């Protein structure tokens, strides 16, 4: 495996609807060979001379090294704004510039371990390649998938193919258990004697999953979703407070130091703020105004 991300002029192979989401497959040679579960890609949107100057970051659902048209990268997304709306409208062969793979991927246990994978909405996308990798190491894999409603649940079939058990929750009860993933997580962990939890989804879910696993003494690896401008570590916008090996809290970039963090290292209750004990916090961390950088 080679190191480092590539910038590749990709092409759309397909865009398919899947429930409330879009499943985009891009031909982007060279990316697949470098990708591990948890990596993400940053896509340029809007075409040449667009007024949308920032990339959109998506966790990688799956990759294929070879295909009829060359290596492919697949992502799953919801339309949130003009950039994702543009992506959803693209036809096969449309050019989409791809930068990736980016970020720190999930760490896999050295020995076979019992694992529970928790996904919220389309945040579950990177967990299926992870599940395959864990299975290949002889790990037990249990899945907990949650969403607001059935059409926002992603990957239940993928999960059933590889998991010992799959628990599904929806807020409205349209499928599975009515409630949140955290309502069923303790039971799933007890039945599977879970030793590691992997989670990807909205911040409140990650916080709750991390807390539950922490109470049971089980380590968590959380892939966070922070809003990014570049995805490559230069813009300093996707930061969150994380405790380092020295016990000190710093504002770290989720694009290069994450997106996967140990759940017990993220200051979940302070995400979106600069906690008072953060290294280098000054009065201006709170003050309005300024644009010195």
């Amino acid at each position, binding site marked *: 495996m080679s190191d480092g*991300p590539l910038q590749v002029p990709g092409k759309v192979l397909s865009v398919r609807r899947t429930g409330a989401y879009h499943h985009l497959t891009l031909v982007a040679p060279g990316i697949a060979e470098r990708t591990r579960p948890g990596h993400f890609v940053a896509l340029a949107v809007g075409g040449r001379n667009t007024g949308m*100057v920032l990339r959109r970051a998506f966790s990688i659902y799956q990759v294929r090294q070879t295909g009829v048209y060359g290596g492919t990268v697949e992502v799953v997304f919801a339309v949130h704004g003009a950039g994702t709306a543009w992506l959803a409208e693209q036809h096969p062969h449309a050019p989409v510039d791809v930068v990736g793979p980016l970020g720190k991927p999930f760490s896999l246990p050295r020995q076979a371990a019992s694992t529970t994978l928790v996904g919220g909405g389309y945040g579950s996308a990177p967990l299926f390649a992870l599940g395959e990798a864990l299975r290949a190491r002889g790990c037990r894999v249990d899945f907990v998938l949650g969403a607001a409603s059935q059409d926002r649940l992603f990957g239940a079939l993928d999960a059933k193919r590889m998991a010992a058990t799959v628990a599904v929750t929806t807020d409205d009860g349209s499928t599975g258990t009515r409630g949140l993933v955290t309502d069923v997580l303790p039971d799933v962990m007890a039945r599977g004697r879970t030793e590691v939890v992997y989670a990807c989804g909205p911040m409140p879910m990650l916080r709750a999953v991390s807390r539950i696993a922490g109470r049971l003494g089980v380590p968590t690896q959380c892939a966070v979703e922070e809003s990014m*401008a*570049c995805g490559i570590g*230069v813009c300093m916008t996707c*930061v969150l407070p994380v405790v380092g090996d020295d016990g000190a809290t710093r*504002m770290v970039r989720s694009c290069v130091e994450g997106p996967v963090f140990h759940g017990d290292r993220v200051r979940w209750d302070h995400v979106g*703020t600069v906690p008072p004990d953060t290294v280098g916090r*000054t009065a201006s961390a709170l003050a309005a105004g300024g644009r010195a*950088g």
Partner: protein
Amino acid sequence: MTRFAVRTVPAPLRAEDPRYDLRTTLGGLELTNPVLTASGCAASGRELDQFFDVAALGAVVTKSIMLAPRSGRATPRMAETPSGMLNSIGLQGPGIDAFLEHDLPWLHAKGARAVVSIAGGSVEEFGELARRLRGAPGLAAVEVNISCPNVANRGLVFACDPGAASEVVGAVRRHTTPAVPVLAKLSPDVTDIVAVARSCVSAGADGLSMINTLLGMVIDPGTMRPVLAGITGGLSGPAIRPVAVRCIWQVHAAMPQVPIIGMGGVRSGLDALEMILAGASAVSVGTAVFGDPCAPVRVLTELRHALVARGFASVGAAVGFAHRAPDRAADVGL
């Protein structure tokens, strides 16, 4: 200027020709080419070096360095706007010690020329930063980010006060090796940018970087609150390019001998050429990097072709070319 001085006949050299001279100078500093990164858009070069050799650029302009480590502001720190973006980072950084230990030596070992941007809250802090940089291997120039709040003057930014701007530039100039140029980075949010430029040059600035971001703000119609945690932020990207071209034009017209690094929304070789024609001797590529990590080297290639296509024998020949007297012969179609 005679009608024959207008370069309508292409130069004999092709753009690919290695003899094509892209060298440019900034107050005694000679650069192999006129394309640089922009402060705050390239960190200290390492991240972009994954995509292209940063030593291939004229120089790497670092993110502004402060004396102490700094956490920066809360999130959200960024909002995309039409053809641009707002940022409110709050000068997050590791401080001068870590920069001198890790970042500058890395740039030096890479063979990159480092223009180190410094930021402080007082004249003394700026002077101290310059003193700490003095003699550091790899230091090609110091860029003074005067768009910082002046702690001593109720947070009024130095760049908006010609007197405070000149004090800061003077302090940095005094503490910097004479052979190392000091560049003042100017804010466009002033009534008279030429006046600020003059006071910086009088205080010893060897060149000017123009422009810093414009102060802006967006409100989310859903939450009906400001989008940025810092409320206001700096506007950058193609949206501000005409403002940058205007500032460069005005300052070059007033002080044609002062070298200018042009920046503000450059994302193509033609954008870079526009700034050079307005009076810039070099051009920084900033926000474009967020959308296209390879933008600086792409802009360099496109600029080379644009200069050759217009018959310029060198970068210097194009600097300020838009200021030339009207050419009657060309105007009547001859």
